[in-house]
């Protein structure tokens, strides 16, 4: 496999796969090439991941300072918003929004906690703390 020297991605795991891309050249032919994405494509993808990581870090700080429940952190880690989390866990959106606060989170039953844990694919113990 070709050496991948383009250092736009900050995560080491990124940019290891080649894809098929189409081109239209000056002779009027459509060409297919299997290759890595160019720099502009990497910049825009890295931008999205920067944004997600910022949100994740912000949520982690909030949880550690006691302003939000761990669900807020896990939600940002899995790139979800309250609506999609509600769909994944089978809980109404207004309840999800309430459970993002530390007080209502403490009063949650085992059954509801299990629903969230299944949605995030982790155990209840992992759900109660942040990394």
């Amino acid at each position, binding site marked *: 496999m070709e050496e991948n020297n383009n250092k736009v991605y900050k995560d080491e795991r990124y940019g290891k796969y080649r894809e098929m891309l189409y081109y239209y050249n000056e002779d009027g032919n459509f060409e297919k090439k299997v290759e890595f994405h160019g720099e502009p494509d990497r910049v825009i993808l890295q*931008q*999205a991941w920067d944004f997600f990581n910022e949100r994740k870090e912000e949520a982690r700080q909030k949880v550690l300072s006691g302003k939000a429940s761990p669900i807020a952190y896990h939600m940002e880690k899995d790139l979800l918003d309250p609506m*999609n989390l509600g769909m994944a866990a089978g809980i109404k959106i207004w309840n999800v929004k309430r459970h993002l606060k530390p007080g209502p989170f403490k009063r949650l039953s085992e059954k509801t906690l299990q629903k969230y844990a299944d949605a995030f694919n982790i155990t209840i113990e992992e759900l109660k703390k942040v990394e």
Partner: protein
Amino acid sequence: MAIKDIVIDYKHRQAGHCESGATSNLFNFYGLDLSEPMAFGTGCGIYFSYLPFLKLMFAPMMSFRNFPNTVFHRSMKYLGVDATVIKKFNDKKESMDALDRNLEKGIPTGVQVGVFNLTFFPPEYRQHYNMHNMVIFGKEGNNYHVSDTVMEDPQILSYEDLARVRWAKGAFAPKGKMYWINNIPTEIDYRSAANQGMHKSVYEMIKVPFWLIGIKGMRVMARDIRKWPKKHGNEKASFYLGQILRMAEDFGTGGAGFRYIYGAFLKESGEKFNNDEMLKAADLMGKTANRWRDFTYIGARNCKNRAKPEEDYGMLGDMMMEIAEGEFKVFKMLDKITI
């Protein structure tokens, strides 16, 4: 239910777009030739919709392709092939058993999946996107053989992982959808299929009476791009712009939001059915697609330097408007052609 090990002799070929690649590979499995652009064109893959009131990954939703499974369904309908699509199952077990039964009969089966938990997928693409397609062509013990056209080689996926991605939650949830080809007639009318597919696409791009779909939607988006920096600030404007570019360039589109693949379809059918008008349209489509790529290059500079945009958003809006007019011309031309 335990079935014995089975691997179907299925040829994996990499492709630009997941669903038309899967359709073309499935078709080729039965010994007839259908290239990826032909599958994309006859199945009306090209589309545009801009839905700013819905948010996908925290930015306005837009789509450059048709709804999931349209490409397979329509191309099979127009080509007159006997195919089955099961839209949804009641539970996980039932859907996996149905897949096993198909593999036992020796039928490679396409499934719709969500990519977030797909273990072999490139990690930079693992976001919540539920419209990915791949073909299952074998089972050994607890593992399935998977042909994913985004990847260079066939992959292996365990039973639990496959069940999980087939039942991904969220917008456009797959609900275990699967599809396969039953049998193919000996004589196939490619000409009428390409004609039908092309005219359906023309309808969807320029004739739908709704202002957010097709070329009309592109014009609305061009106007919105100009407003973004004032309305949301530079940071958010560049993230929203990035969303357009990501949907157009990354996520397995073959580049320029499928416009290259569609141009290749026009060129191939123009040569196949000796139609000069269509070759002209293909040339124009290729040039418009190159403008899309320029748009990405310029837009990416804005995304690199988020707080201080290097290029003015008004200029990008003008460029988008120009692209919309270019595509409008192509579809106007196609409207008058009958092959």
